[in-house]
């Protein structure tokens, strides 16, 4: 293989593909704008949800007027407003189902007192409200116990006989970093991987469909030089996509207000290490999509193989979300999974260089295998045959 020929091919492909507006859009514009939008939207939505639930008046139904008096007594100190509805034992399930009431409460007094609370737990808003409701009922319960204990001259502070103290030694900054450590690997992997798909398809089977591949094959370049030049272009596009995504994530997090749980900060060194950790996955995936597209008869066919394959990337890339998973000699060997965990450990400033090395080594090896496969596939006669 000749360096000057590979460089010529690489330069031409870069020039060609960078003039393609679709590439610029998916490589730079999409990653840059999607995070600010995503996070701003997410934050706004979460806040509005919480506010909405806390402001809303509770709607509670009952069947017996005696019950009502009791419930009112229990909720008299609650920090929410309540509207009460009288109903029958036959119709309250429908009321709950139709969301006309949040809860139906039955009160019963025998040897002990029982509050039976009926509600739709699959409804998140009701579930959040239940937290508040049960707090009020528990306060009532505590009050009752104290009264009973007082009869036996047991002091009030008997409740505090055992205490638990929690000291969170993680700084607030670290808590926020944890959130970033979960999100970033997944987002970064998915975006850079999809960044590789378009150029890989376009440069191989796309060139065949446009009828320029035969000319290229009849030139003084060897097929391997062609594969390498085009492959490097694919990797470059994927790496730029990764860079744009990473920049966008980091800047977005930086600009979030202090109070937001997304407000983590990343220093420049962490940024660089993260970027270097993402390169191997762009290499693997570029090589894989490259081999697949070389094998395909049309761009459509290539897309139909690449899309389901994305599934195999998405699941392992979610490793960063699973609490307790860390890089060790076993997990460092699972492709994609290891890169997700590696990125997480980099963000958390807990990177272990041995596993960094193993992950990188394995990724380069995998990329090399797929490139060799692409070499084989590119040598086939079918490469310029459009098929029947």
């Amino acid at each position, binding site marked *: 293989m000749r360096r000057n020929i590979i460089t*010529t091919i690489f330069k031409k492909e870069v*020039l060609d593909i960078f003039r393609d507006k679709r590439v610029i859009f998916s490589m730079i514009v999409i990653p840059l704008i999607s995070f600010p939008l995503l996070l701003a939207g997410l934050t706004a939505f979460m806040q509005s949800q919480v506010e909405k639930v806390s402001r809303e008046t509770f709607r509670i139904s009952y069947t017996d007027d005696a019950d009502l008096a009791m419930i009112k007594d229990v909720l008299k100190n609650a920090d929410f407003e309540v509207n009460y509805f009288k109903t029958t034992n036959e119709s309250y399930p429908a009321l709950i189902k139709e969301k006309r009431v949040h809860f139906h409460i039955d009160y019963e007094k025998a040897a002990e007192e029982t509050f039976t609370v009926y509600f739709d737990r699959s409804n998140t808003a009701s579930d959040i409200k239940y937290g508040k409701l049960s707090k009020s009922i528990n306060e009532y319960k505590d009050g009752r116990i104290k009264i009973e204990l007082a009869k036996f001259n047991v002091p009030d502070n008997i409740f505090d006989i055992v205490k638990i103290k929690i000291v969170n030694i993680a700084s607030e900054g670290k808590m926020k970093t944890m959130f970033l450590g979960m999100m970033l690997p997944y987002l970064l992997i998915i975006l850079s991987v999809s960044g590789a798909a378009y150029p890989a398809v376009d440069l191989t089977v796309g060139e065949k469909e446009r009828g320029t591949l*035969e000319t290229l094959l*009849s030139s*003084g370049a060897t097929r391997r030089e062609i594969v390498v030049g085009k492959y490097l272009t694919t990797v470059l596009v994927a790496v730029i996509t990764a860079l744009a995504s990473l920049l966008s994530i980091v800047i977005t997090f930086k600009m979030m207000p202090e109070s937001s749980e997304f407000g983590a900060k990343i220093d420049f060194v962490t940024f660089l290490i993260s970027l270097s950790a993402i390169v191997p996955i762009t290499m693997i995936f570029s090589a894989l999509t490259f081999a697949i597209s070389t094998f395909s008869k049309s761009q459509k066919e290539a897309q139909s193989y690449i899309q389901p394959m994305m599934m195999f990337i998405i699941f392992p890339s979610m490793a960063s979300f699973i609490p307790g998973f860390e890089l060790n000699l076993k997990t460092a060997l699972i492709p994609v999974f290891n890169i997700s965990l590696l990125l997480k450990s980099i963000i958390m400033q807990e990177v272990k260089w041995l596993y960094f090395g193993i992950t990188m080594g394995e990724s380069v090896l995998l990329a090399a295998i797929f490139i060799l496969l692409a070499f084989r596939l590119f040598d086939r006669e079918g490469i*310029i045959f459009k098929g029947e």
Partner: protein
Amino acid sequence: MLEIKNVSKNFVLPKKKIKQAVNDVSFEVNPGRIYGLLGPNGAGKTTTLRIIGTIFSPSMGDVIFKGESVFGDPVAHRKRLGFISGNTGVYDRLNPKEIATYFGSLNEIPRKTIDERFERISEMLDMKDLLGKQCSKFSTGEKQKVSIARMMISDPEILILDEPTLGLDVITSRTIVDFINDSKKNGKYIILSTHIMSEAEYLCDDVGIIHKGDLKFNGTLEALHGKYPGESLEKVFFNLIGE
């Protein structure tokens, strides 16, 4: 001399079926003469030309240029070879000069030579209006001019032209035909495929008639007419392929 010696090509199709595209074909191409490969669709013309261009390797036989097999050093062979087909696309987002420079560089032509040649070629092909524009909006004929410029930038000794006038109007075809005749005068090895009999009639010196992979006739145009006196090439063609 360029010799095609007992070349056969079998393609392996899905389900292990074998397609015999070219079957024991032999002929010679001489400098300053145009060899025309005539045949209907699917006859094996393109496959034969691709083998001569080392894009495919033959299942059997060999292609010899000046005494050496072209498969010994295919890169060296392709550097002295220009390949054009009627279906050749151009890079839509590049301009003519960028395309020519790209292929010149792939054939390791020095940059200075490329610039000088491009100047001359674009003049000859009357491409003034096309320079500096991306090829996406070019017409079929304009694209074909770009392809010729791309090919000529390496000043190839051998020209392989696979239906070069496909889809072109008479005026643009004229430009291509003039270019082919020019190359002939310059002593190039020219091999061209076509299914247009009249084109073969006024361009070619030697002809091969191929049908279903078999070479039914190989000789000079005069010899062909001598064999079937007074008949048009069209008629001769149908006689040969037996339909």
